[in-house]
């Protein structure tokens, strides 16, 4: 009997073995030239970085491991933590039990965090690479005087579909409601983006403070519930890549990542319009290693680092050095940088009053619980 158990154990261990080997690949953790000056006077300190999941070039598939490169260059140790939505990040910061030195929220969340004194003003004399940021992405509504944030990525929400499963070329969000795709449609598992789709179809302001507008959108979303396969965030990758779902609303940058794995996927910016967002790097008011944080922001703007991130994440970059770089493979990517940018109707999210936020969150829960 013992023999049988040990045989099972041995096989179990053997099965796990290859996994542990595969993680030992060489890491690409250095950049060849730096534009700004980085010294090692903060060596040995720790920098707490709070970022979205899958939102930095991390050394997978021989890409640059940005955090490792920063550690190697400056001797500062990075403690890297991730979140999956602005709201999760906000809740955690608000709980006061944590302190981070770097955080990368989206526009409307930056607006709210500035209002609530959760961010500190940056010292731009320490961010010499800031001149690389495209003027288009300066003076944006959430930080009009460019005091609190440095743009990291720009993105839009797209309608993604599998051309072998969808027999038309969709141009409207309406297709998500089409009964012939019942059980094949994926919706965001996040209230703001989820509502956006219905708001665009209803033609109401994404930032409406009129509850009736939200009710209207909610009615539409209720009608969508039965047609959905589910509400997903990161699961969208395996759903669409594996051909398990036909239609999904998701971020255009992530579409390119999926397209790499499944060439049948296509995307479109629906005619009703879509959300555009800018995720920017900020330093929280209660940051402890403020100087290292400035160094990190400056490092993220370095041409080589920004290029690695832009290639890895497939989001549109606000960094002009990347756009001008011949090595950048996505420069001509129609999806990221539409040639006729005016043809795509876009709208930013703004921070909304507590009352409206509570209202639509409740509606969202009701819709999901139908």
């Amino acid at each position: 009997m013992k023999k049988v158990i040990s045989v099972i154990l041995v096989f179990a261990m053997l099965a796990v073995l290859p996994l542990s080997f595969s993680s030992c690949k060489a890491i690409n953790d250095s950049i060849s030239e730096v534009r700004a000056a980085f010294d090692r006077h903060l060596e040995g300190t720790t920098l707490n970085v709070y970022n979205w999941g899958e939102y930095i070039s991390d050394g997978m598939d021989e890409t640059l491991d940005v955090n490792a490169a920063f550690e190697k260059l400056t001797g500062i140790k990075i403690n890297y933590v991730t979140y999956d939505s602005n709201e999760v990040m906000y809740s955690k910061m608000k709980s006061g039990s944590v302190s981070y030195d770097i955080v990368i929220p989206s526009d409307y969340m930056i607006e709210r965090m500035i209002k609530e004194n959760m961010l500190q003003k940056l010292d731009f004399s320490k961010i010499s690479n800031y001149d690389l940021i495209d003027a288009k992405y300066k003076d944006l509504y959430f930080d009009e005087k460019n005091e609190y944030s440095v743009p990291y990525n720009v993105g839009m929400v797209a309608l993604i579909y599998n051309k072998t499963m969808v027999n038309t070329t969709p141009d409207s969000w309406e297709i998500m409601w089409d009964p012939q795709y019942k059980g094949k449609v994926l919706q965001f598992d996040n209230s703001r983006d989820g509502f956006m789709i219905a708001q665009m179809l209803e033609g109401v302001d994404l930032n409406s403070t009129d509850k009736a507008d939200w009710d209207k959108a909610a009615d539409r979303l209720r009608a969508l519930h039965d047609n959905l396969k589910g509400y997903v965030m990161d699961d969208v990758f395996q759903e669409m890549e594996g051909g398990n779902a036909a239609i999904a609303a998701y971020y255009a940058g992530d579409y390119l990542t999926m397209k790499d794995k499944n060439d049948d996927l296509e995307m479109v910016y629906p005619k009703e319009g879509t959300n555009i967002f800018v995720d920017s790097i900020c330093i929280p008011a209660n940051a402890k290693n403020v100087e290292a944080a400035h160094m990190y922001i400056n490092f993220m703007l370095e041409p080589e680092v920004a290029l690695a991130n832009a290639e890895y994440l497939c989001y549109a970059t606000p960094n002009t050095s990347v756009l001008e770089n011949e090595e950048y493979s996505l420069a001509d990517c129609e999806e990221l940088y539409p040639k006729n940018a005016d043809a795509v109707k876009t709208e930013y999210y703004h921070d909304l009053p507590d009352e409206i936020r509570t209202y639509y969150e409740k509606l969202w829960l009701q819709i999901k619980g139908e």
Partner: protein
Amino acid sequence: MPESVNKGPSSSAPAGEKIRKTAKPKKKKAGTFGTALANTPFVVWSAAFIIIPLLFVLYYSFFDPEKGFSIEYIKVFFTEPMYMKAFGLSALYSVIATLISLVIAYPFAYFLSKVSPASQRLQMVLIMLPMWMNMLLRTYSWNQILQDNGLINKLLGVFGISSVHFLGTPGAVILGMVYNYLPYMILPIYTAMSKIDRPLLEASEDLGCNGFQKLRRVIFPLSLSGVISGVIMVFVPSISTFYISQKMSLGKVTLIGDIIEQQIKLHYAEGGLNRGAAMSLVLMIIILIATFIMNRFSDEDEGVLM
């Protein structure tokens, strides 16, 4: 207090040896001291990680930094139809999952207790084997297996059956619960079954019981304590489940556990912590009452595992 604890091991060990050789009554006293000593880490652990967190839950259910004491958070659980609906679903799904587990586990445990000891051990290892892997991974694997292009649908495709939607249905959620918690049903029933005295069964046969009567009159009553334990151990984690429902229903089924998670994860700053704590408290009380009632069915006084 700490002094006596520190003194314990060094001074009492030789004393204990002497006692063992000489007087019997004193041994008992050393035993109680030793027991207390051995229990100390457990007591400290329980206080730090069970009692104190529970007090926090209690505190946040009623107090909020701005409003002070309020029963509003408890009230909202009962007055908000959305929450009641999610709770109703949780109760329904967990009852179904428990019944299915029982139906699978009971005959399994019965036959398991009858095979040779070597085979019993092997099968126990096989039951425990999946539990060596993290529950999140196991649930995620099911998500993959049940996919529209997953293993099962590919297999059905071989026989010309068109793809079936499993994910996103209540059935998938219940399957996830049953799969994850089934071992907790099998183990106590099996333990109770293997404790049944063989001669009792033989006696029942001698007295003219047929197979069914033997099961109903002898085996079932003697294994009841195991059944009650199993039912509680499957029902309790099922009713407060959250991750399984999200992965197996792709967000289409919202259970009370999901709502509690969302409250704390997403709405922390807007009273979510208080609402989450209050909902957890109500849920705990309901589970406690349910457990108490179930325990009534078991007339053994050994008190069934919570």
